[in-house]
């Protein structure tokens, strides 16, 4: 039985009943698309169309259309890949780690955050395909018998680990998300007014009836999926960081990379969740479900992970000096004072200084500030990857090979493609699927309703006070 301390603020405000939750969340799924949605969707599709044209040309002509040169062989492609994968860490973190820690505020944001994760990982995967140059040979990354390619894939290589990590992460996240959706799809099915939506949501709901046995197994597998996803989410960015860390490039070859990348991933992912949820809650009038408490909690995570990232930057710098390796020291001095100093200081300002503003309670509870800082954080995290990749590569071992990187319109166009792709998918999700997990929100309403007097928390629900003796029975 849930008994919540009276000092804890309610998770869901507005004294919502179970029926209110269904009504509020289903409203946008059942109604006609709003004007705002249509405008946003049209813009996304136009952006996607432009990006697809650029991507088509990239594949048609080959990677020569990018700004890469013989010194800088990885630039925007891998920067964008790591950036999107990082963003794709928040959803599973929210739904898995916060479930294990019994953080009930996750229930209002996990659905949208997981959807965001899936779309972000798809964007990341698109950059993997892009940077292969010949995407039709992408299957070479799979362990297929020699007749298909040359040899077996090399299981000692972090690039192969990445193939396994990202595909496992994507598919497990998708399953986790879908299993969570089934009860809500059944709710929509049972409310459907016309045959078509009844058929579609009925098929998607797979015959869910909400029996006690099903719920018990559902809760059990959710817990196990959370337990599996927690090390999985940490492994994914660890392996991504090993793409760099196992090489011998000064600036990449550092053991701090795995925890530093994981913290950075959570940092940027939460910032992206903030951006999406702040818009969604206003457009769909979900202020009672995604309250300032939720925003504040997420800002606290942003501050924590931002601080870890800041410490990692300083540690890297310190170790570069302390190790006595002059190449390593040079790589770092070059980052801060070389030709890419502006990228380095953009990263430092955005990632180290801006999240520290959240120590002020009024800033971390301000919607405008949160939105603004979240955008800044994601800009900073993009620059972090750019700094790590490009500044480590552009000054090669031989000064005669030193070069600079400048993006072409195709580098930029392919990045724009990922935005179009991401927002198109997210808008489709937010229109046709419930953006908040209704079943889970209903399960936390009782222990969090603001109408509840502290003494009967867990027994009564607002004005509908059940037989008070029930409380005694249960204890």
């Amino acid at each position: 039985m849930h008994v919540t301390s009276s000092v804890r603020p309610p998770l869901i405000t507005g004294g919502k009943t179970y029926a209110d939750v269904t009504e509020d969340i289903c409203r946008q799924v059942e109604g006609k698309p709003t004007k705002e949605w249509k405008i946003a969707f049209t813009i996304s599709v136009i952006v996607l169309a432009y990006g697809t044209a650029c991507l088509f040309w990239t594949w048609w002509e080959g990677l020569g259309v990018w700004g890469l040169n013989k010194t800088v062989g990885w630039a925007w492609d891998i920067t964008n890949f790591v950036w999107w994968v990082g963003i794709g860490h928040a959803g599973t973190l929210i739904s898995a780690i916060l479930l294990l820690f019994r953080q009930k505020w996750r229930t209002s944001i996990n659905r949208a955050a997981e959807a965001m994760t899936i779309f972000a990982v798809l964007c990341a995967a698109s950059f993997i395909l892009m940077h292969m140059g010949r995407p039709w040979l992408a299957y070479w990354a799979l362990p297929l018998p020699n007749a298909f390619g040359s040899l077996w894939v090399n299981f000692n290589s972090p690039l192969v680990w990445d193939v396994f990590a990202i595909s496992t992460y994507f598919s497990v996240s998708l399953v986790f998300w879908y299993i969570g959706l089934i009860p809500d799809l059944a709710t929509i099915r049972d409310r459907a007014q016309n045959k078509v939506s009844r058929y579609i949501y009925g098929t998607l709901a797979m015959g869910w009836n909400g029996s006690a046995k099903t719920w018990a197994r559902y809760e059990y597998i959710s817990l196990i999926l959370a337990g599996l996803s927690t090390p999985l989410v940490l492994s994914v960015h660890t392996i991504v960081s090993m793409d760099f860390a196992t090489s011998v490039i000064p600036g990449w070859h550092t053991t701090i990379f795995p925890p530093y990348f994981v913290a950075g991933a959570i940092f940027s992912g939460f910032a992206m969740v903030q951006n999406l949820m702040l818009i969604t809650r206003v457009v769909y009038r979900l202020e009672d479900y995604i309250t300032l408490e939720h925003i504040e909690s997420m800002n606290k995570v942003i501050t924590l992970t931002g601080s870890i990232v800041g410490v990692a930057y300083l540690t890297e710098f310190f170790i570069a000096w302390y190790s006595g390796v002059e190449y390593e020291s040079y790589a770092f001095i070059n980052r801060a004072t070389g030709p890419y100093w502006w990228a380095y200081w953009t990263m430092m300002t955005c990632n180290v200084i801006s999240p520290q503003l959240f120590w002020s309670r009024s800033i971390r509870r301000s919607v405008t500030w949160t939105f603004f800082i979240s955008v800044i954080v994601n800009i900073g995290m993009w620059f972090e990857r750019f700094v790590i990749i490009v500044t480590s590569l552009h000054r090669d071992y031989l000064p005669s090979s030193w070069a600079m990187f400048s993006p072409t319109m195709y580098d930029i166009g392919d990045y724009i493609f990922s935005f179009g792709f991401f927002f198109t998918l997210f808008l489709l999700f937010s229109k046709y699927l419930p953006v908040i997990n209704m079943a889970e929100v209903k399960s936390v309403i009782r222990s969090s309703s603001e109408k509840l007097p502290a003494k009967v928390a867990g027994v009564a629900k607002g004005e509908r006070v059940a037989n008070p003796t029930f409380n005694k029975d249960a204890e």
Partner: protein
Amino acid sequence: MADLHGKYLVGVYDDDEVILHAISKIRKAGVKISEVYSPFAIHGMDEALGHSRTRIGIAAFMFGVTGCICALCLTIWTMGIDWPMIVGGKDPISIPNYIPVTFELTVLFTAFGMVGTFLVTNNLGPGVNPNMFDPRSTDNKFVMAIELGKNKLTEEQISQVLKDSGAEEVNIKQF
């Protein structure tokens, strides 16, 4: 007596706490409950209904072990036996390097195997038509189904027990 097989008395409750306590009262009264349907998971429901603990975790563990063994076989056989190669001066079979792939495949097998088991054991799948006792049970109502054919008490007696335990409505449903 008419055939009572497939004939259910459906108690509709308004509150999860009420139905949770109603269950023990109804079971004490000697009524056998077929199943309870709710819009969300209610903690303590299994114990109240006397359901045994789900064994899906055992299945999940087995799938995980399978995944782990498959991954080790794949990596060791391809790298060390089928086409041995020395990479980076390491032994062709270097188990520590295979940990990431083994871990990922273990997770993959566990997750998919477990979810597959979940769908099969609960008879969930595209095209499955659920027997819904009351469509409101996915919205805001808590529904208890009692099959008359499996109970000794009469319809009126059970109906009275349901109402006494706090049911808002008692309906009859035939499947």
